[in-house]
Structure formats: structure tokens, C-alpha cells
């Protein structure tokens, strides 16, 4: 089964508005990391009758804004673990809601976070099915839905 851009956009927008209270707008540009700064990627995998993953790529500054909204604290008061925790929960909520749109028995993994300047996170055997780029408070981020290639055409 194929999830549409609209399906994923609605999930991301609801997480951002209901849980973070932050406004986002669809971007008219691609997402590229500023490799001189810290960047984060939050990933959850879905396994079972449908297999794929959700990845959220964003600059650390935006992850800190999101964590600030979730913890109700100023961005510079937050520790590193709190920023990673918040991004993990954002990825979990997006992944859980994507899973809710899929038919069949599936399991959601716990989130994992990668961080660094210039890096890549890959899920071997999968390809990007939907890619959305947004701007939130002037900071870009992207959300990717990856699908296992052996079922991408199903």
C-alpha cells in the first residue's frame, strides 16, 4: 500500500501543531544540511506486513526549539539528552501515525537518533517513497518515508 504526500503532510502538521505548538509551512526548496553546524536525524522503523521507516532530518537548533516547546523550557536551558529525547518522541509520533494508516499487522521500533555535521543515515534495501520539506520558524527540515524495495510496487 502506498501512502500519499498528503497523508504524511497531515501527520507531520498535526504533530507540529498539537504537540509542539509551532507553525510550519511547506518549503519551496530542498533540504540541505549546513555541515558546519550540528544536525540530527530521528528514525523509527515499521516492520511486519508493511516494512519501511520514517526519518526526520533537522538542524540541531530546530530540534532544540521543538524540545523547548515540549519541555516548556527555554532552548538554552535544555541538556543534550532532552533534545535527543524530544526528537525521538517526534519521530515516534510521526511513525506511529503513519503505521495507523497502514493495513495489516506491523510493529513500530523504538526511535534512534544520529547526529553530526555531515552524515547520512541509510536503511539498506529501502527507497524514498515520500519526501517533504518544511520551514519552521525560518529553519528547514525534512521528513522522509522509506519503503522496502521488495514491496514498493505492491
Amino acid at each position: 500500500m502506498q501512502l500519499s504526500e498528503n497523508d504524511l503532510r497531515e501527520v507531520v502538521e498535526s504533530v507540529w501543531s498539537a504537540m509542539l505548538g509551532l507553525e510550519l509551512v511547506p518549503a519551496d526548496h530542498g533540504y540541505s544540511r549546513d555541515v558546519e553546524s550540528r544536525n540530527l536525524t530521528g528514525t523509527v522503523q515499521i516492520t511486519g506486513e508493511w516494512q519501511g521507516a520514517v526519518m526526520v532530518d533537522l538542524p540541531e537548533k530546530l530540534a532544540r526549539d521543538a524540545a523547548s516547546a515540549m519541555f516548556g523550557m527555554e532552548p538554552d536551558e535544555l541538556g543534550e539528552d532532552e533534545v535527543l529525547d524530544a526528537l525521538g518522541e517526534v519521530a515516534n509520533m510521526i511513525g506511529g501515525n503513519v503505521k495507523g494508516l497502514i493495513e495489516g499487522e506491523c510493529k513500530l521500533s523504538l526511535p534512534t537518533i544520529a547526529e553530526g555535521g555531515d552524515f547520512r543515515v541509510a536503511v539498506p534495501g529501502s527507497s524514498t517513497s515520500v519526501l517533504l520539506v518544511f520551514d519552521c520558524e525560518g529553519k528547514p527540515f525534512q521528513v522522509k518515508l522509506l519503503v522496502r524495495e521488495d514491496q514498493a510496487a505492491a
Partner: protein
Amino acid sequence: MRILIVDDSKAMRMIVKRHVGQAMPDAELVEAENGAQALDMVRADTPDLVLCDWNMPEMTGIQFLRALREEGREVPFGFVTSETQPQMREQAIAAGAMFCLAKPFTAEAFQDILASIS
């Protein structure tokens, strides 16, 4: 009223605490990071309500709920989870949960759930 909030995400525990605090300013809020820790806490001192995530390390929310019921502990229990598939909800209700509140939720949805059980 004493409420146990169980979630491996500290950020989500903060959000749930904030919402509960607004709806029930006098409630005593206690926290656990996973089902195993929460099970020990309930055994030691049973709360009036458990608000629990589904996916957690050590022991998931549904394992925790089933363990409680197997021990004959009938503490009111609700899921606050990003798991929104109908079969998960059915599993939760069959295991003895009162409700499943889907994440992300609005402040209104959270208040409505709390109002319905208080």
C-alpha cells in the same frame, strides 16, 4: 488523586504532566520510564489512575497492563500512545484499558478524557 505517568520519553511525560496539572491541579503526579518500573511502583503503592505509553523498552505498556490484571490489580488504566491502529485499540480494551488517547492530542481531547473518568 494520585496519577502514575509511564513513558520512556521524558519530553512526553512533561507534556502529559502539564495537561494533567491544568485539569487536576491537586493531583499528585508520579512517573516511571517503562512498564517494569511502573509495575514495581504500582505493587508498592497503587495509584488512582495510570496513564501509559505503548512502546517502551524493558516492558511495553500492554505487557504492563496484562501483568497488572494477572495480579488482580484493577487500577484504572489509559493509554496515551502514537499507536493508532484499530487492532491495537482492540487489544488495549480487551486487556482492560479504559481508553486510548492518540498522540498527537489536543489540549481539549486530553481534558475531555480526564473529565470523562473523574
